[in-house]
């Protein structure tokens, strides 16, 4: 199938060739040399076309040889690359170490390489299809015929001169001794021999570089999958965490939180509300007296002795007004309705005094009810309980839980400051392993608190330590390890900070329940903000329900107390305190009123109720 195969030097000397069809291919080879090799168009394809002929060629830079095969363009030969490579290897093996001689007998190797390549190609084509046997036999016949022809015909030798000789000048080989062409060939070979001799000595054998492997799959870049390796690229800051300088110690805070926490001061509002309420009562009173007059003589005497009885219809307008008032003060609407129903039930059928009005009666009854709700049924005294645990040789454990963004970590730091001021050693367990920056936040607080109470003043011991295991870990396990660490190092109190979570997120609520069940803390504090509205009811109901349902205990540990935060943001809309206390029956243990360590107060029931009823 190959019409013409030739091996020649880059200088233009033909070393060996095989012509299968007898035609002249000098013009084709000359075009190849002129158009590709001389113009440095050594493309990767190594493929060249002219008219109906195609040339596949290969360069051997070590020996400065060119291997070329000419065939009909319409025939698709898929083994040419491998064939030329094999031919190069065979030629190098036979003549690579020998100085250039006068004659190169390469026919036998050529036939062997060609038949091997053709057989391999036939096998490859035969594998998927079974209809190629006829073609295969044709190939075999052709090969045999080609071999026979090569034996019979004398080997033609030709030269390709760079000066582009016309095709007619090519002749069959003439007698060796008398031909001037032979002289020219011998002269060029001698020059080539001289040229190659020093190159041969110095050139090392080129190791064939294997084809670069096909590009594999790129590793997936998950969305939101950035890690610390990416941080170096993204960080545009000029300083690093090592550059942190401790801020000025606010030493004025030291000593302010000793003893019992001071009571909360609720801002007093305008006096106008009182005037409105009293004028409203007066108006109702006038209406009442008018009705009495029209009732006749007996009604007149009844009114004098103050025997008027209150009924539900009389109470309804005042209660509606009071309910709206409570809702505007941020009491949950459901709880406001229940409170008004309770007041109605307690006032129905009651005798009204001579100088009383319905509005004042309702207000007074509601005030008593609110005071009773806010007053704790049981007293939580952390100082006393912690001292008792200290005597028993185990740490007192408090777990803080709540929804996102209510200030659990900030208020944990405040409570920690309060405990330090009362001479307790504290360990903070960083069990918020989800939110970004949570561990660093606690570390910063720990550093600040130790700066306020340096170890030098406490027998060389840090009053507060941080126990943390980074992010993505199991919170219950970290808390368990922290409590064990506290027990071993005789720390007095362990404060466990947890991740904020929505009350509807079941996996996270299960995790919290597990944390509490496994670690069996002394106190579970729910941290809620005073800004929250009706959501407070849902939050507390579901937190308690989750702690009860998921604990698989007969006596599950639910919320023991409430920390009410951000109290300074609500002015007089203090209804959240009522909502939370009403729904849980647990006391408000602490009230947070700001972001410094001294902004921690105890609730003042009377002040809150007065503010609410204004």
């Amino acid at each position: 199938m190959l019409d013409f195969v030739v091996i020649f030097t880059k200088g233009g000397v033909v070393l060996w060739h095989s012509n299968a069809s007898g035609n002249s291919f000098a013009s084709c080879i000359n075009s190849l040399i002129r158009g590709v090799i001389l113009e440095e168009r050594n493309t990767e394809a190594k493929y060249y076309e002219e008219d109906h002929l195609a040339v596949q060629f290969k360069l051997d830079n070590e020996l400065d040889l060119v291997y070329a095969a000419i065939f009909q363009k319409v025939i698709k030969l898929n083994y040419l690359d491998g064939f030329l490579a094999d031919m190069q290897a065979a030629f190098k093996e036979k003549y690579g170490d020998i100085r250039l001689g006068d004659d190169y007998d390469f026919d036998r190797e050529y036939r062997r390489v060609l038949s091997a390549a053709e057989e391999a190609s036939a096998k490859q084509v035969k594998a998927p299809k079974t209809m190629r046997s006829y073609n295969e036999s044709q190939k075999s016949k052709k090969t045999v015929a080609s071999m026979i022809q090569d034996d019979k015909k004398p080997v033609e030798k030709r030269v390709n001169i760079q000066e582009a000789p016309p095709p007619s000048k090519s002749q069959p080989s003439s007698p060796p001794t008398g031909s001037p062409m032979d002289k020219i060939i011998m002269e060029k070979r001698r020059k080539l021999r001289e040229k190659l001799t020093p190159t041969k000595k110095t050139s090392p054998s080129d190791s064939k570089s294997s084809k670069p492997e096909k590009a594999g799959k790129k590793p997936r870049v998950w969305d939101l999958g950035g890690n610390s390796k990416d941080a170096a690229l993204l960080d545009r800051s000029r300083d690093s965490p090592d550059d942190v300088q401790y801020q000025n110690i606010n030493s004025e805070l030291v000593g302010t939180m000793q003893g019992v926490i001071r009571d909360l001061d609720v801002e007093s509002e305008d006096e106008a509300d009182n005037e409105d309420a009293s004028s409203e009562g007066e108006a109702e009173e006038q209406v009442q007296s008018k009705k009495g007059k029209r009732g006749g003589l007996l009604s007149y005497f009844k009114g004098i002795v103050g025997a008027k009885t209150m009924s539900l219809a009389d109470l309804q307008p005042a209660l509606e007004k009071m309910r709206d008032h409570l809702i505007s003060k941020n009491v949950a609407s459901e709880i406001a309705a229940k409170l008004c129903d309770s007041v109605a039930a307690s006032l129905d059928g009651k005798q009204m005094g001579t100088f009383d009005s319905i509005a004042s009666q309702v207000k007074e009854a509601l005030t008593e009810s609110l005071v009773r709700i806010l007053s704790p049924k049981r007293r939580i005294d952390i100082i006393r309980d912690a001292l008792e645990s200290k005597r028993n040789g185990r740490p007192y454990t408090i777990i803080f839980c709540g929804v996102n963004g209510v200030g659990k970590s900030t208020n944990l730091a405040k409570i920690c400051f309060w405990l330090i001021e009362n001479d307790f050693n504290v360990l903070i367990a960083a069990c918020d392993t989800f939110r970004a920056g949570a561990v660093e936040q606690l570390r910063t607080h720990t550093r600040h608190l130790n700066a306020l109470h340096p170890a030098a003043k406490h027998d060389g011991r840090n009053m507060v330590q941080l126990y943390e295991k980074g992010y993505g870990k199991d919170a219950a396990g970290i808390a368990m390890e922290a409590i064990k660490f506290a027990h071993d190092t005789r720390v007095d109190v362990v404060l466990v900070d947890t991740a904020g979570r929505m009350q509807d997120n079941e996996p996270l609520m299960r995790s919290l329940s597990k944390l509490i069940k496994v670690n069996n803390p002394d106190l579970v504090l729910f941290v809620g903000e005073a800004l929250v509205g009706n959501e407070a009811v849902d939050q507390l109901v579901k937190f308690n329900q989750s702690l009860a349902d998921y604990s698989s205990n007969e006596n599950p540990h639910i919320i023991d107390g409430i920390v009410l935060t951000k109290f300074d943001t609500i002015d007089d809309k203090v209804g959240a305190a009522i909502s939370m206390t009403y729904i849980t029956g647990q006391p408000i243990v602490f009230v947070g009123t700001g972001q410094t360590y001294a902004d921690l107060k105890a609730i003042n029931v009377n002040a809150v109720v007065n503010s609410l009823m204004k």
Partner: protein
Amino acid sequence: MVLADLGRKITTALHSLSKATVINEEALNSMLKEICAALLEADVNIRLVKQLRENVRAVIDFDEMAGGLNKRRMIQSAVFKELVKLVDPGVKPYQPIKGKANVVMFVGLQGSGKTTTCTKLAYHYQKRNWKSCLVCADTFRAGAYDQVKQNATKARIPFYGSYTEIDPVVIAQDGVDMFKREGFEMIIVDTSGRHKQEESLFEEMLAVSNAVSPDNIIFVMDATIGQACEAQAKAFKDKVDIGSVIITKLDGHAKGGGALSAVAATQSPIIFIGTGEHIDDLEPFKTKPFVSKLLGMGDIEGLIDKVNELKLDGNDELLEKIKHGHFTIRDMYEQFQNIMKMGPFSQFMNMIPGFSQDFMTKGGEQESMARVKRMMTMMDSMSDNELDNRDGAKLFSKQPNRCVRVAQGAGVMEREVKELIAHYTKFSAVVKKMGGVKGLFKQGDMTKNVNPTQMAKLNQQIAKMIDPRMLQQMGGVGGIQNMMRQLQQGAAGGLGGLGNLMSGFGGK
């Protein structure tokens, strides 16, 4: 979805109107009382609730009305309009301009979720090929810069901050200037939380605002806040020029009504709502679709907008394959990639009628997303031959060793690979059947082009594939047909949504 409780109560009240035999003032008052109670329970400001009641009453004039149907529709329409008015101040928010530096400053109360929302917003724009960055000007709260750093690292967003500089004005100025020089398009400045009782911090906020001259100041408001919200929002508005509002923590059963008062107080529109603590839990807010979703009407238009917004390429090719009944594992793989681009499942599911209430909790959604990721990891472990094979399931069943290799490569158990193959088998069976239905993908009305018998069979086939609980939620086979018809009409030929809708079920 957001405000699920409120939506249910208002819907129940409106339905009670449909059941009444006579529409008179008494029925109207009773319905309005229920709606107002629901709004109060959702922490809507008490003045706004009274105002809504008066406005609805003013619109309805019983003397001039004749027919009962007209009255019902008019009342429902009046309630709808008043609810829209409640959440829409009538002001257009600032629209960021691509190719130019847009400086956005975040302000809000402590713990409202500003830092998380900053990262969400930067990520939102980054996914839309904006050059986004973060500047942390919160030097007050402990650990604030570390929080920004970790969030930004996770989302691969460039960030600037400082551990040594304690003046937020300096940090904001330096950060914004640097990012402007580097050609960033969305520069988000995170500030400390503060409230109106902290006058010095409010002055600091004004100073930061003057230093960086933001194009938009976004007020971040927590959805759980009660009646104190209005005072705080008004105080912020008085100090700096609030341009937009983002409401956070609206996942689950959050009331959200108090935050709606922020709109009335600041006269600024809500542009986004935050629905979780992960970085992709952020949804654009549009007033009418929100109220429509609130009342259980679904949001097909929003679903199609979301699908079109992602510009999912290759869907034409996918539809061509579906017509011929071809579906390879690589096609399923690409559909999963599109699901990941869509963001959380709950946002997707909320837009389908019937799915708007309580269907998927936040925790369940995370598990689903993790499962999709797991499947994608398995498919990453497959070779090209396996992915592109016309009948991938047969290939794996003939050569079981492939399952072992894929399982080891992906780090999962062999059983999970087999589950994935079974999943693909079920899916490709449906695709083959869909290809057999003539005229299914023609333009125009689906019912005209498709043989009703074949359509019924196809719907039954889809019904078998879907989880029974979800099927019940959608209203059975009829619900599927209605949904597809709505998709057909709403999409007006945008068939890409259909392919993704199918894959959405497959991802389950």
